[in-house]
């Protein structure tokens, strides 16, 4: 059994209202020095060792990320 992490982030040119809202809130929290925040998704998968990279990529591309607006990265840990 392996632990696989998939991080999904919005493509850089796509508007990220979630990240913007966080940046807006930082002032209220009194935190300075954070210039930009982008919010994405983080998936942790428990997979059999038999699951190959191609399968993981297909899984990420169809179920975890929306390739129209997002990109993903896969990491075996």
């Amino acid at each position, binding site marked *: 059994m392996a632990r696989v992490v998939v991080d999904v982030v919005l493509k850089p040119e796509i508007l990220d209202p979630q990240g913007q*809202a*966080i940046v807006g*809130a930082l002032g*209220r*929290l009194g935190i300075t020095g954070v210039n930009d925040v982008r*919010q994405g998704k983080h998936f942790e998968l428990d997979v059999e060792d038999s699951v190959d990279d191609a399968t993981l990529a297909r899984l990420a591309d169809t179920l975890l990320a929306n390739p129209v607006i997002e990109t993903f990265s896969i990491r075996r840990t």
Partner: protein
Amino acid sequence: MPLRIGVVTFPGSLDDRDAARAVRVSGAEAVPLWHADPVLPDVDAVILPGGFSYGDYLRCGAIARFAPVMRSIIPAARRGLPVLGICNGFQVLCEAHLLPGALVRNDRRRFVCRDQLLRVQNASTPWTASYYLEQEIVIPIKNGEGGYVADKRTLDELEGNGRVVVRYAGGNPNGSYRDIAGICNEAGNVVGLMPHPEHAVDALTGPGTDGLGFFTSLLRVEVRA
């Protein structure tokens, strides 16, 4: 003098006008409170209404918790000021740690708006004194992140001390643990509620008038502020 009930407006509040209307229907005076105003005027109680306080993209209520208006509401609530959080208001109260637990994405992963049967489990808070124990009422719910969650110890403690205020009956709409639709703090003055009683104060525009009790209850209890 009628009771003065403050209704907070965050930039993304939506049901603030409805809550104010319900307050007026109950015979009290609605006092508008602006999110950016750190000073709490002289009010007998406060309502945090439904909506999406600051967009709520991160977690519902996560940013509202830090609003200037909350800086005065949080200590006042700790001192006993009756505070009712409805839907987004409930989320804000949990994020502000005035109430335990949290509200997460509905188990069906969809927003749900429907008329919901509820059972009153505590009829002695300043917000529920107009009801009787086990009373069944119908009130709209409308939420995307309305699943109440907490660890087992907290849940047991809520149950053991009568702090579950209302429970879903006739089907759990969002996966809330133990069908919890509303809870209160230890003192009972702070109540958080996922359903929207302000949308059930007039049969013309809601499923009935079952929600009115939440607003008239204050008249029945001695309000300490």
